[in-house]
């Protein structure tokens, strides 16, 4: 059975601009998204900023009513049976808002346990278990206002799991968490599906998606541009290869010219301390390194290497093509 199902989901936002001459503006954030997540699956939703990931999640967790289309969780409509769905889902948003700052983690969790209908008798043990799980044990008596970003994020995760929901939505759950903490969190997320839960995850970290997700949908401009296992997505660019060039002070003009070059699929520029890293994805069977270097107008070039495409490369190719 499909645990989460979205059928042609759409959502537009109406906003107004200007104070004197008011104009109303419509933003089409999600334009007809369909996907299904099977029981026990860890499904990733990837896409650039503003692609519509959070909007999609908010429709699924009953916080937004879709403009059109349908969504079901465990077979129940998220608009008609909102309360039924709420009892069975957990969700965690990245970021540090959404907590009662002046109270302790313990107070926060006790209150939310009540709101989420956790059995009074089991509350203590459950909260203990979760504090242990997210690594906040021993600091639960401190006020949240003194917590670091990562600690708040962990507290959010504990909150989202209080009522042991069979379906969990995680919107950038590792944002702002230090590398070691993020690794622990990934292990926690992986353990969720291991215990039979169904998880929908969004993240901007491709290695994270690659390591965790059974299946991924890439969304851009409110539409799904590709869907499949990480291997399938990689296969979309696997025939090509990737040339990485270290340059010192490359000009935007040169990068634009590179993009026009025959056989180049995508170019991204990563700023590193004094240098930039050009990541050029090329079509199969071409040896473009020479052509690429000749486009750089004699900017000083460091290390040049070529490698197999990763999920990140597949993602970049998909998103730039969209």
């Amino acid at each position, binding site marked *: 059975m499909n645990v989460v199902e979205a059928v042609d989901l759409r959502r537009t936002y109406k906003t107004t601009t200007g104070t004197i001459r008011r104009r109303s503006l419509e933003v089409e954030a999600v334009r007809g998204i369909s996907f299904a997540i099977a029981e026990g699956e860890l499904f990733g939703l990837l896409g650039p900023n503003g692609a519509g990931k959070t909007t999609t999640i908010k429709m699924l967790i009953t916080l937004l*009513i879709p403009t059109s289309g349908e969504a079901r969780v465990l077979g129940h409509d998220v608009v008609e049976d909102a*309360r039924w769905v*709420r009892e069975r889902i957990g969700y965690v948003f990245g970021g540090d808002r*959404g*907590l*009662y700052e002046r109270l302790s983690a313990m107070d926060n969790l006790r209150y*939310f346990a009540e709101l989420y209908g956790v059995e009074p008798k089991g509350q203590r043990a459950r909260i203990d278990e979760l504090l242990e799980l997210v690594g906040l044990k021993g600091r639960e008596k401190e006020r949240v206002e003194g917590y670091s970003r990562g600690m708040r994020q962990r507290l959010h995760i504990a909150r989202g799991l209080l009522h042991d929901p069979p379906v969990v939505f995680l919107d950038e759950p590792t944002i702002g968490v230090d590398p070691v903490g993020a690794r622990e969190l990934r292990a926690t997320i992986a353990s969720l599906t291991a215990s039979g839960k169904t998880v929908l995850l969004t993240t901007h970290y491709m290695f994270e998606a690659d390591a965790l997700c059974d299946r991924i949908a890439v969304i851009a401009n409110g539409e799904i541009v590709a869907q499949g296992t990480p291997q399938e997505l990689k296969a979309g660019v696997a025939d090509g290869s990737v040339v990485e060039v270290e340059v010192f002070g490359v000009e935007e003009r040169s990068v634009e010219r590179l993009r026009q070059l025959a056989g180049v699929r995508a170019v991204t520029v990563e700023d590193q301390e004094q240098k930039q890293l050009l990541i050029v994805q090329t079509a199969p069977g071409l040896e473009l390194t020479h052509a690429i270097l000749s486009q750089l107008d004699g900017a000083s070039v460091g290390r040049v290497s070529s490698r197999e495409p990763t999920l990140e490369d597949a993602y970049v190719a998909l998103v730039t093509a969209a």
Partner: protein
Amino acid sequence: MLRVFWIGWLFNLKNLTNSLFFVLISVLQPVIFASIAFFMFDRGDRGGGLLYAALGAGLMGIWSSTLFGSGGAIQWMRWQGTLEIAVAAPVRFLWILLPLTISTATIGLYSIVATLFWGRVFFGVPLSFVHPALFALALPVTVVSLGLLGLVLASTFVLYRQASAFSNLLEYPVWLATGLLVPLSLLPGWVEWLSWVLAPTWGMEAVRNAALGGEVWEGLGMCVLLGAVYLVLGSFFMHNFERRARQQATLSLT
């Protein structure tokens, strides 16, 4: 449900008392109110008149803390980011907000105690009540009815954003219209209908009569009746608010 209410009330009470600003307001305001009230009254009168004024001043404090605590409650939750979490919880939003508004009124209870205390210390207000037991009953009933009025405020303010601009303007007129400041008989006749629908009027009557002698049950009955009406109105508005906010995506705007 009762448990959710109780835990929510305690939780919000704790949250509010942890806020320095809120505590300051409810510590300082009553003292100021008490002084103003005493100076407005005949200073030669050392008897019932002073207690009358002190109780009025105390209730003013309850109203202020309800008005500011409840009126801005939803906006506060929106800023804190807790509104989305509250709405997404399986319990009805009403059961999250109601304990909050009642706890803001409960905080105000402190201002009655404080006003009476300062009144006793500085102005020699006699603290003898005609019906102590009824007084002890009238206070919580008044607090709950004000909390329910707070629920109506919270929901109208959030549905009609312009209304919240008036929240500051509501403080003094309501003190007047409910007889907290001066006896209602001194006000023009048209105020009467307004006074009639406001629970503080009846709460004031019950509390004062319990302290100074007179009919208590009428005021109590009206508090309960109006409280019930507020609850129905408030839950209707809340339901509307939730639906509209999910349609218009206003749960997470800051």
